């Protein structure tokens, strides 16, 4: 997948008190993704954009857009990525 395509799928990180805690407790980061995207494409987009492996993805379509709760391998990796994207 090209970076251009990946950046269309991953729109922005969704930062709230709840998602903020998820980084430290469950190694998860919540992103708002494209409505039509699927779990495998989200996984691929995360790999191309941030060079990290997504272990598990849960999605939820809400009024804020499609949320994707992405679990990373370790809490340290999730924390580092959250810092790089300016979430923390």
């Amino acid at each position, binding site marked *: 997948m090209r*970076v251009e395509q990946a950046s269309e799928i991953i729109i922005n990180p969704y930062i709230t008190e709840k998602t903020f805690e998820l980084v430290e407790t469950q190694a998860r980061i919540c992103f708002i993704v494209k409505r039509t995207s699927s779990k495998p494409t989200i996984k691929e987009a995360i790999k191309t954009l*941030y060079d990290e492996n997504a272990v598990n993805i849960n999605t939820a379509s809400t009024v804020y857009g499609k949320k994707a709760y992405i679990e990373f391998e370790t809490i340290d990796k999730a924390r580092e*990525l959250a810092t790089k994207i*300016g979430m923390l």
Partner: protein
Amino acid sequence: MKVPMLTINGKKESEIELPLIFSTSFRKDLIHKAFTHLNSHKFQPQGRHPTAGMDVVARSNDPPTGQGVSRIAKLRGGGGGRQGEAGGVASVRGGRQAHPPNVNKVIFKKINKKENKLALCSAISATKSKEMIESRGHIVTKIKDFPIVVSDDIESISKAKDITKILSSLNLMQDIARLKSRKPRTGKSSLRGRAKKIGKSVLFVVSKSEKLSKACGAIPGIDVKTVNELSVLDLAPGATTIRLTVYSKKAVNEIAKIKSSHLELLVNVK
């Protein structure tokens, strides 16, 4: 991350360690937001005269019982001229606009300082990706390593003749030639004298820009900026990522001094 530092002849001189700012992740949403908000700072307020189309004495015959005429407002008076014509309201010839632009509308979009800084860091970091530079339309087939870092000699060049030699030795001339094939625009913008539009090619980021901006002045599409002046407007024109950028060695050292809250956290993580 290390990248080769080139001489002005295009040969590899040594390697330079990129500062931590280059490890910021790509945030397309923030870059887009920063561009649209910063771009609004140069908009001029626009509006019509407050009474345009209403400087007439016009009244409607409402209700026009039994007179066989419409209910629209008509100009009063006699003796020819416009008397009897409809006017003073929207939807008639010579009347006012329905919803004209207003000078009191706030068109200045504010952006948070930290958000702007993060967008700038993300844009600077994106200049290391060849794929993203190509996605903006730049032609960089002959260049291998990004970002392009050149020795400080480039800052002392003040002649256009010299800079064209350097550009060709750095394989940047093919991107500048790209702008020549641009067609003139059509339609209303063309009729109003805005047919020609110059694109954007190489951006030089240096520590002092006096001499180099003089040398590059005649070459269309090239911009020279100091690190302090650098903004998302330069790095992502039209909010499309990302522009082909050449840094001088001093500029890279100055970029390392940019402060942002996420960079402080990155130091702790590493």
